């Protein structure tokens, strides 16, 4: 029940809805007590033959008015309470989203997206249930259950109430026991189903092997076996599940029987009237719901608590990359100076950048090459502040980038990552991502530099074509070029191209690099690549190995020295030849 305390902030926030809602619930519970009473009175008057047209009209009218009020109030409390629970869900989702936008890449490495999604969907749902159905069952079981019991005991006969309700605790105990058993068996059934899922996944993935070995029939046989196990487990669950209704029926029937038998005794001894007996038995029917509600309540509350705890702990994670307190809101462009003594991701990681010192003047292009590893990309990500340098500094125009706001820093940067991610929207919206009000001309210009404009015109709906996961599928090269266009739209002072020409052929690569050079006179460019041809024209080339700079200089100088650069360059020339079928 502590989860209700945890959610007090929300109940306070929506106190109007909840106070009204709960009050209405209470009123509804009390109003529900009226009809059985009226039935009792009418029956007694019928027996005494004292019923007149006027009194009948009065009683029936009362029930009618009562019914209308009940309808109205029920409608209202549902709106208020369930509606509020929806609001809670919405707020939690918004809060989670806002929090997610502040988290750094380290967070996203530790937390799988599937898990984060589960928190935002299943957990939010469970908390919503608590604030909605949870409140309902809590109030109903206490108020309705309590008031019916009081009515039965006080206005009819406490002796009758006690005796006929004796079997009911047995029902509560039995259903609890079934619940536990059901939980276990349900778990097993879930596992069997999961197993079936895995089996199908495995067979479909290895279909070539299965088919080449002519093992289709055998695989179908294995599938049948697992599917049979699923059926068996489901039957085991069904056997318990089917016990609930009959057990409730049994206990309720016994209660009825007892109340009729003992009640008749009381009628004979003039302790109660027949009308009262009938009222009593009708109240018994009303009592079933609050009793079941208690069981349901425990369920909801347990799930809600677990889910809310998870959401809260998620929201309390601190961002590790953030603006410092005195961060300046503006950054002026200048020479970029890397002065990193060492950098590691964390204590466990083997990887390390060490002794990285170089300067990039405004308007220069710097190329970074090296074996596949994390050195090159890491170097770039540090400029973007996806990670923070721990020993050393990076400065732009003499200002340590840690001393300006992230926003100010990133305003200067156009970034093209290795993984070319596009959003599910139109090509234009993807390219104009950082400048949503960009004109068509701006977009076309960026696309032309990235050598993708003509390709886009050939798309089914040109720039209005929807791409991304839910749109048309593009080749790797096309995605890369759109990513490049995206980074150019604001004509940023610093362009970071992280191995983003890998899916593009050598000719196109050359075209793009040339356009960039022409268009970006006076602006700084960082480019990493596996191909030496991409960095050939840079003002400075850095060769990284195991996090250290092993060679540096211009292309003309590096091909004269025996070393990694020369070897790779020659090898790639040969590869190119082979690719073209050359002899």
């Amino acid at each position, binding site marked *: 029940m502590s989860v209700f305390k945890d959610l007090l902030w929300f109940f306070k926030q929506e106190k109007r809805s909840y106070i009204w809602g709960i009050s209405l619930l209470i009123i509804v519970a009390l109003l529900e007590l009226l009809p059985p009473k*009226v*039935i009792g009175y009418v*029956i007694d008057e*019928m027996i005494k*033959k004292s*019923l007149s*047209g006027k009194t009948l009209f009065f*009683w*029936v009218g009362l*029930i*009618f008015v*009562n*019914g*209308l009020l*009940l309808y109205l109030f*029920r409608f209202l409390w549902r709106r208020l309470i*369930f509606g509020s629970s*929806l609001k809670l869900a*919405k707020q939690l989702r*918004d809060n989670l*989203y*806002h929090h*997610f*936008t*502040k988290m750094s890449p380290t967070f996203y490495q530790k937390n799988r997206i599937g898990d984060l*999604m589960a928190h935002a969907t299943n957990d939010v749902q469970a908390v919503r249930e608590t604030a909605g159905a949870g409140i309902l069952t809590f109030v109903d079981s206490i108020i309705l259950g309590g008031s019916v019991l009081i009515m039965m005991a006080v206005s009819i006969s406490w002796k009758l109430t006690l005796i006929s309700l004796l079997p009911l605790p047995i029902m509560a105990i039995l259903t609890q026991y079934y619940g536990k058993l059901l939980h276990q068996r349900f778990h097993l059934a879930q596992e069997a189903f999961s197993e079936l*899922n*895995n089996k*199908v*996944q*495995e067979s*479909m*993935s290895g*279909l070539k092997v299965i*088919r*080449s*070995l002519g*093992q289709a029939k055998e*695989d*179908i046989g294995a599938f049948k076996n697992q*599917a049979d196990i699923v*059926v068996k487990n489901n039957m085991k669950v*069904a056997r318990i599940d089917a016990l609930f*209704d*009959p057990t409730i*029926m049994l206990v309720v*029937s016994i209660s009825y*029987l007892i109340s009729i038998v003992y009640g008749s005794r009381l009628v004979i001894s003039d302790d109660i009237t*027949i009308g009262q007996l009938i009222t009593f038995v009708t109240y018994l*029917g009303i009592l079933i719901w609050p009793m079941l509600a208690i069981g349901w309540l425990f369920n909801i509350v347990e799930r809600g608590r677990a889910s809310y705890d998870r959401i809260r702990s998620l929201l309390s994670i601190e961002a590790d990359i953030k603006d410092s307190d005195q961060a300046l809101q503006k950054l002026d462009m200048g020479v970029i100076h890397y002065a990193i003594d060492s950098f590691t991701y964390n204590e466990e990681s083997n990887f390390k950048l060490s002794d990285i010192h170089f300067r990039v003047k405004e308007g220069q292009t710097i190329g970074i090459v090296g074996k596949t590893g994390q050195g090159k990309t890491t170097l770039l990500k540090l400029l973007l502040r996806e990670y923070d340098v721990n020993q050393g500094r990076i400065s732009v125009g003499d200002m340590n980038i840690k001393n300006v706001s992230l*926003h100010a820093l*990133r*305003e200067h940067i156009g*970034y093209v990552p290795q993984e070319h991610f596009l*959003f599910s929207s139109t090509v234009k919206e993807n390219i104009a*991502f*950082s400048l949503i009000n960009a004109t068509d001309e701006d977009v076309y210009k960026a696309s032309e530099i990235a050598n993708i404009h003509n390709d886009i015109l050939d798309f089914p709906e040109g720039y209005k074509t929807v791409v991304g996961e839910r749109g048309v599928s593009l080749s790797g090269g096309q995605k890369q070029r759109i990513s490049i266009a995206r980074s150019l739209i604001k004509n940023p002072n610093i362009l970071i191209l992280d191995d983003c020409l890998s899916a593009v052929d050598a000719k196109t690569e050359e075209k793009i690099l040339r356009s960039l050079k022409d268009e970006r006179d006076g602006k700084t460019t960082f480019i990493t690549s596996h191909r030496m041809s991409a960095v050939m024209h840079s003002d400075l080339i850095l060769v990284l190995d195991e996090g250290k700079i092993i060679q540096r200089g211009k292309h003309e100088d590096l091909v004269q020295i025996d070393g990694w650069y020369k070897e790779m360059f020659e*090898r790639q020339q040969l590869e190119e030849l082979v690719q073209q*079928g050359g*002899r």
Partner: protein
Amino acid sequence: MEQEIDISRQKKDLFRLLSFLKKYKVLLFFAFVFLFLATACEMYGPILVKRFLDDHLMKQYFPKDTILMLFSVYVVLMIGKIILSYLQLLMFQQIAFKVVQDIRMKVYEHVHSLAFSFFDKTPIGSIVSRITNDTEAIKDFYVSVLATFIQQIVFLVGIIIAMYSLDVKLASICLGLVFIVYFVILTYRKKSFPFFMETRGQLSNLNAKLNEHLQGMSIIQAFNQQKRLQSEFEHVNESHYQAGVKTIRLDSLFLRPATDLIYTIGIMFVLSFFGIASFSNPVEIGTVYAFVSYLERFFEPITQMMMKLSLLQQAVVSSARVFDLMDEEQKAPVQEGSNSPKIVEGSIDFKNVSFAYDGVHNVIHDLSFSVLPGQSVAFVGHTGSGKSTIMNLLLRFYDVKDGEIRIDDHKLSSFQESELRSNIGLVLQDPYLFVGDIKGNISMYNDAISENDMKEAAELVKANEFIEKLPNGYDEVVVERGSTLSSGQRQLITFARTIAAKPTILILDEATANIDSETEEAIQTALTAMRKGRTTVIIAHRLSTIQDVDCIYVLHKGRIVESGNHQELLAKQGLYYNMYLLQNKGSLQLAE
């Protein structure tokens, strides 16, 4: 993507779902019988009480025998109703599980008969979810929707019959209530369906957006677009909220509160009816009680059915997806003609073969080559040159577009599939192991492979050396994809698997991953052993492994540009020579 499923499709699918029940006519019959009996017991209860009230309590007349009889009948009915109710609940569930099992098997068998061209364009995830998750939703249909509907309708009819047995006039009035409720449900269904679809659409919208933004968060942050995308998200969140509020409003108007109001009206009728009657004649109080009692239970079935409506909507969507898969027509190539030749020698002939995966753009052009029985040939070339396609065609995973393939001078299409499978062995690039044990992974459920055969195969490829060192030897457990074994060990096991079937022709799609030299050597030795006496086709990536094959074909853009053995090709100093150079950090002169 959510599709709109039109009404006629829904009806067709519904009938199809029901047709699967035909097989279980007998079980259904018994389930119905139990259901009727259980309902009868339940219905008779209030009548017994009425009898007691009117004949005895009112008149203060309590003959021991009659009272005892009433009592015992009540108890018997009570026990009967409980047992019968339990049995019928169980039987309907059992039928449902069996029917879903049938549907699952049918889908799975069908999927196995489909062509690879189907699998090429269908993501595995969607196939798997149709076989498992969607059939599960269909199960919910049978269990929660169909069974519940049947039970509740029988219950309802039972109540009405009981009411009629008491008082025809009043029962008819109550019957009128049923029509009102039915009308309410219809209106609700009609109004709720668009809301239901909208809420679902908004939810899937919301989740898709969240998922996408999470995946692209580094881009969002790099481009300073957090605020803009947040308001985009909040916008969708708001729409979802509004849709939910509308749904609540609709539910509050039409569901529980409405049925309770109609119940109140019913009570009003009952009281008025008996009240007015009581002015002239004494009224049977027991009958009043019985009607009130029946009315109380009258609306239970209806509320139950309404709650299951959303499951029905879900089942409709799922059954459409399952049936679409079941009706898929792209079947795998089947045997043509009835000759059923056997593969004896293992000679292969490709004559002017062309093929395109998409039917239009040829991946191989006019390819011709021959392999004599027992010879080894290799195909080399860059990615996309058509090497793997040759393998796919030889295995008849696809049919050729032009030209012809022959084995032992019989057309490939004339062989029975089982003949091809048992005589052509395939070793894939990526050694795929199945969950189970090593023994099972080598023999793969094949009864024709004895324990001896299996061990022999393992020895031939020298896999037995590491297997026997494992704690459980051949019974050692293999987990998902064999991740506890090294890649070299996995390769050797798949080699053993292929050889155990003693194929006449061997196809080897060589692994490209770099492995340590020790494993490399072991694999090489195994491969050489496997090739002895068998016609072998190798799709090669590393030229160092094919230096002793009888003929090497160099492919470029789907055509053979060079052929000959290793020495001959090196001497030509052409494409093969350059490729060889590339793979070796040697110091041969760069050919111009």
